[in-house]
């Protein structure tokens, strides 16, 4: 299954829900396009990774790149519910302690208000 991206907005937060395989190619290109578009809008971003079944180094790199683009404009990008395999890769690369990661959407959305 290729990557399916879905965007919805709650207040000033864009929630980007990913489902499928986040790997080098169309999937990373699609995510890059979404995150770059988000970076020029005035909202912060929450990336829901609960439906991502597989991620490779290019997928991780795209998350880092999106984070850089969005935080450079003074806004935030946080992650929600990484599925088991993604969680393990975030730990392995030590990105887990660098990204703000939430298990509950309500808690994640509340964190942008602090």
């Amino acid at each position, binding site marked *: 299954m290729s990557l399916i991206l879905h965007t919805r907005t709650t207040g000033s937060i864009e929630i980007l829900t990913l489902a499928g395989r986040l790997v080098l190619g169309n999937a990373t290109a699609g995510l890059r396009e979404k995150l770059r578009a988000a970076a020029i809008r005035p909202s912060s971003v929450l990336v829901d990774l609960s439906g991502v079944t597989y991620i*490779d180094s*290019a997928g991780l790199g795209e998350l880092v790149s999106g984070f850089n683009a969005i935080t450079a404009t003074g806004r935030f990008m946080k992650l929600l519910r990484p599925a088991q395999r993604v969680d393990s890769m975030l730990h*392995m690369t030590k*990105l887990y302690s660098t990204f703000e990661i939430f298990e509950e959407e309500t808690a994640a959305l509340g964190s942008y208000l602090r």
Partner: protein
Amino acid sequence: MTEPIITELRLPTRLGFEKVAMNTAASVAEIMGFSSDRVDDLRTAVSEACINAIEHGNHLNEDLAVVVTMSMSVESLEVKIRDEGPGVQGEMHVPDIDRKMLGEEDPRGMGMFLIQALVDEVEYVTNQPGGGSYARLVIHLHPENKD
């Protein structure tokens, strides 16, 4: 089984074909009885190594090939990913996550770091006779028994 059982693939230098190698390596590992977590680890490591071979070894030159050789023995599975190009697959770089998050380092470039974390042994050999280099990845069925 004393002699290793060999499975070999010759892949075109085109991104996407790493999937053929990763799925074949995963099938061999499943046949050998590796757990699903270990199979997934191998799948990722083989994919990353093939992408390195395609991008950095063969420099995306479609006239060249990537040869993936899987040697299945009683206790371990060795996967050798060989390119034919002038590039070097094995320039180990430990990613600096803080620098990446600050945009001071290329956000990609975590592949080799992942490979090292996912398999039991990794070796990179460059300057092969006739050119090219290879990555050799090994996973053991019982890594705790390994010397």
